């Protein structure tokens, strides 16, 4: 890789209390690519993902060592504001979690609280643009002021994606974004990821091998050791990981003989 990565983990260790969840992860996520994180349950995929935008700060007993370099700066430096980090590095969760407000408000809120100074019609444009980018506009344009909870699960998840892109992040983290959805809705989310990756860097955790193969450019495979601490086994272009893994553990996992 010659280009500077979008975000880079250096010797990342994450602890929950005295339990080490992840050890010594060094990994660079390429810009404007989809990187999939795969691995058996409990290997720390979510933990790694959440440490990229400091969501782990919200867990009282979580502790982080090492560095997460974003735009040449460690986001865990004391002079970095986690609020700004999270605006620049957005997140979509496993379970769709729209706000119990109108569809419009769901998208507009993040814009407003980040100090948006503009007219109502500019805000309308931002909302429309985000909903279009999330491939949801046509379905909701007539009911923008209805409650978002009335949408289907797949629509809710795309709304969450729209909400995330409305604040113009650089990176979007997705933690199993399609695992609560049916196959059709899942495919729509995958298509969406392929569209979005032209403008954003996407890091997606998934349990679904086919999904990782379909949607990602790069794949990181994590596993656990005997003390249940997760670590990075192998990282590389998705095609290579799936056809020609260097590590026998990766091969075992991908071919379904493990995990």
């Amino acid at each position, binding site marked *: 890789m010659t280009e500077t990565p979008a975000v880079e983990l250096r010797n990342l260790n994450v602890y929950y209390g005295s339990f080490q969840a992840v050890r010594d992860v060094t990994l660079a996520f390429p810009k404007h690519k989809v990187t999939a994180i795969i691995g058996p349950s409990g290997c720390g995929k979510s933990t790694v993902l959440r440490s990229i935008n400091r*969501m782990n700060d*919200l867990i009282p007993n979580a502790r982080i060592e090492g560095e997460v370099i974003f735009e040449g700066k460690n986001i865990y430096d004391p002079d970095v504001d986690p609020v700004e980090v*999270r605006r620049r590095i*957005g997140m979509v969760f496993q379970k769709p*979690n729209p706000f119990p407000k109108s569809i419009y408000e769901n998208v507009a809120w993040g814009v407003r609280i980040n100090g948006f100074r503009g007219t109502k019609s500019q805000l309308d444009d931002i909302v429309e643009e985000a909903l279009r980018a999330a491939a949801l506009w046509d379905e909701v344009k007539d009911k923008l002021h209805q409650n978002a909870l*009335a949408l289907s699960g797949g629509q809710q998840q795309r709304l969450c994606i729209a909400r*995330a892109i409305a604040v113009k992040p650089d990176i979007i983290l997705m933690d199993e974004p399609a695992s609560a959805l049916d196959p059709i809705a899942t495919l729509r989310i995958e298509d969406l990821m392929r569209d979005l990756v032209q403008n954003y860097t996407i890091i997606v955790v998934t349990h679904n091998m086919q999904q990782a193969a379909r949607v990602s450019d790069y794949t990181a495979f994590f596993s656990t050791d005997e003390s249940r601490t997760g670590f990075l086994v192998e990282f590389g272009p998705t095609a290579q990981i799936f056809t020609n893994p260097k590590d026998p553990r990766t091969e075992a996992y991908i071919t379904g003989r493990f995990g």
Partner: protein
Amino acid sequence: MSVRPRFDPNRAARHRRARIGMVVFQLATLVGIVVLMALLYNIINNAFGLAAIEYRIYPATLGLDLETLPQTPRERLLEILETHLSPGLRRSLERTRPLTQRSNEELAALVLERVLQPKVLDTWPLVPSLLHTQDIVAEVHARFPQAEVRWVRWLNTRFLTRPQSSAPLRAGVRTAILGSLWLVVITAATALPLGVAAAIYLEEYARKDRWYNRLIQVNINNLAGVPSIIYGILGLAIFVRALEPLTSGAVFGAVAEGVTANGRTVLSGGLTLGLLVLPIVIINAQEALRAVPNSLREAAYALGATKWQVVWHHVLPEALPGIMTGTILALSRALGETAPLVVVGASTFITFDPVHPFSKFTALPIQIYQWTARPQPVFRNLAAAASLTLLLLLFLSNGIAVYIRHRARQRRLV
């Protein structure tokens, strides 16, 4: 090879146990309902019924009908007052305000109080009144040949709108209702903001692994169980004594009229009740905040929201219905408290309305307590009527709580 487990279905026994469980739960519910019905029966039984009443001058002899007294022609009322009031009394009444300028209601009240002067000799509860009307009438005729037997609704509009009086037929709960309302307002105004703020701190800000936060939490839980009389003593020491210049209104220059009473004001009472319900409000609000799913907080944080924005825009609105219902239930408890108010110095007999926070006051439970302590049977009926009033107020506030919860739920689903 896996071992095939041997099942002993014995479903008959399992079903039997389920049935026993059901019966036990039904019985428990039944006991609750029976107790509640007994309570209501007791109150309603005493709030209505027959009464033996003696008059100085019987209404019939003047051609008056008690039920429609205020509708009596004006001239007739004035004429009665003219002929039956002593000259001295009439002069003093005229001096306060000429009789001709008074409303029909006022004149009727004067006729009743000064001319007819009804006196309750004995009363009977509702059920015997209904079942043994004849016997009661006969008994009254035997015991008080002069007296008249009448049906009385002890809870009536006059009762609700008249102040306390030593004459049972004139006594009302107006002062007490107003006092109770003042108390509730002051209690809510103190306990709600303080309680919600404390709950937000404890749930959203405090780190639960810190010993001092756990200590605070344990303390609040324990404070919710402290007997109310202790809060009364606390209120007496703090609000009535230590903060007297404030609670008496002296520093605000409000001590002018005879309405004020050193620190024993409705403000002190309300603040004391505020302290009393504060832990309950906090615990309820914490419960409501805890019920807000964490995914909502994460969604907001992930967009770059600050803690304040997360709490203010999402967590609090989501928890508000729960907080409101919890608070209203706590206020209902305050509405029924007696002991702390007695300690803080609620008046047992005042006839003027509380008009500002520095007024002397009484409250419904105080009034009830005071009436039940009287020996004459008629006060039992007044106490029952006041209890019914208090219960209605409580139902009203609980109804509001239910309505708020319902509204909030509907709003979420639109």
